[in-house]
């Protein structure tokens, strides 16, 4: 199973590329001091809005800070922080969605009503409320994401579990006495993991943007520290005179989000045997359809 996943993934060039990009971004973020050529917060007013040079590969911003270094340090809140928050909220949502969708009845009703309550508040308002209670800072924004997003994930995952649980192979497993937890792990999770991957990767992008929105409002990452969304907002002030300043953080966001999207797409293809290429040779000899129709019985 794992072997097949790996061979299928390595056959897909786009998957290898996006895996490499994600790996590089994560590594650069984790070891930012090694990769960054300069101190991201070192102000040098002589180099305000300086263009790209050999010394400063991506140029300097409105305070003369090295953009490349700020970009690399910005991976930490933008990618690593968001990934952690995403992981927690998806895990919580997936767990509750699985339980609600599989066991149905009262369990389902209780979990879904709690979700309804969570979803009835606009996301931004709730985040503002949580930040208002707990105070300003990146950690609290991420905590707010974790507390709010799970309801949405639980909803979507429940819907796909409900559909998957109708399948006859799950009925068969229940009849032959397979314990519920085994059925969930062995039969339901692989089928719904495709949906989980799609919702997780698509909300990854929107979470990066939301985080930058809060940073812009001054609620998230605090001023001298680098964050991609905040870099975009700083560049916005000089949007017409220096539009190139938006390129670096903008492209970084686009690149990361698309790499994650392609990755989740490739992962689905590699996991799903009906889409896999390695078994094609079987498929051709396997199906010899019987085309007889009619009432020939007895």
């Amino acid at each position, binding site marked *: 199973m794992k072997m097949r996943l790996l061979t299928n993934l390595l056959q897909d060039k786009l998957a290898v590329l996006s895996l490499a990009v994600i790996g590089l971004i994560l590594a650069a973020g984790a070891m930012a001091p090694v990769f960054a050529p300069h101190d991201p917060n070192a102000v040098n007013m002589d180099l305000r809005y300086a263009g790209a040079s050999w010394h400063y590969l991506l140029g300097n911003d409105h305070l003369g800070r090295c953009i490349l270094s700020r970009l690399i340090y910005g991976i930490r809140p933008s990618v690593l922080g968001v990934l952690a928050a995403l992981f927690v909220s998806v895990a919580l949502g997936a767990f509750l969605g699985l339980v609600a969708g599989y066991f149905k009845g009262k369990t389902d009703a209780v979990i879904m009503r709690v979700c309804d309550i969570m979803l009835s508040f606009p996301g931004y308002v709730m985040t503002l409320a949580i930040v208002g209670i707990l105070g300003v800072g990146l950690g609290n924004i991420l905590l707010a994401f974790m507390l709010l997003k799970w309801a949405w994930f639980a909803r979507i995952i429940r819907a796909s579990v409900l559909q998957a649980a109708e*399948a006859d192979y799950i009925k068969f*497993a229940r009849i032959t006495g397979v314990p519920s937890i085994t059925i969930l792990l062995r039969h339901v999770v692989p089928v719904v993991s495709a949906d989980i991957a799609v919702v997780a990767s698509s909300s990854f992008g929107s979470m990066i943007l939301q985080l930058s929105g809060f940073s812009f409002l001054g609620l998230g990452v605090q001023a001298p520290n680098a964050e991609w969304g905040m870099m975009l907002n700083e560049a916005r002030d000089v949007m017409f005179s220096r539009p190139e300043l938006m390129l670096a953080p903008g492209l970084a966001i686009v690149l990361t989000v698309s790499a994650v999207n392609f990755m989740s797409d490739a992962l689905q293809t590699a996991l799903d045997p009906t889409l896999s290429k390695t078994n094609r040779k079987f498929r051709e000899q396997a199906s010899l359809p019987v085309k007889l129709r009619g009432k020939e019985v007895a």
Partner: protein
Amino acid sequence: MALLNISHVFKSYSAGGMFARRAQEVVRDVSFACEPGECLGIVGESGSGKSTLGRMIAGLEKPDRGIVHWEGRPVWDRRQRGCRISAVFQDYTSSINPFFTVEEAIMEPLRTSGMHKRKDRSSVDLLLEQVGLNASYRERYPHELSGGEAQRVCIARAIATEPHYIVMDEAVSSLDGSVQLLVLDLLKALRRKYAMSYMFITHDLQAAAYLCDRILFFKEGRVEEIIATEQLRNAQSEYARHLLRMVITS
């Protein structure tokens, strides 16, 4: 003692939303028994509640009232039931997990029952052989099988743990005519070999008459008549006679 004893079973589903108290009775006061080694056909139209009855017999659902006892114990107790009850379903496309190979699908009930220690890969070959497939099918995925092949794999999976009885809900109904006949013959042969009981739920009286010892006519949640297959022409109830007429004229 009867293998399966069903006595005064009622089942209803609530219709409407969460706060609605309306209930629709699907199965009403059903009683019958099934002897070891017997094949009982349950014949009824779609919507007659025969699949609900099948789910209760298989232990998937609890009846509202009445008892469904298997060898004297309630059938919905998973631990009591073990792997001695099995099932084959109508929809062969969703009967095998699309992520499983044929071998993994057949090994699943064996693993659950702890029989995989005694039975190894060669037993999968043997099971496949018994349903008329060769060992090369082991590595295939469900989407690489035709309807008849998939249903044979389901049968192989159902007999893997040597169950005492198998519930078959429209097991041949979605197959083509000639394949239906082949599968019915296979079921007949397997039953002789393993001395199993079948609960053959279908809307097709012809298929039921071909395979079963006794036929239970089921209509609107009630048992209309239970009659031995040889005695079929002497059926008394209006519904049974109606179905028989339909078969003769078609």
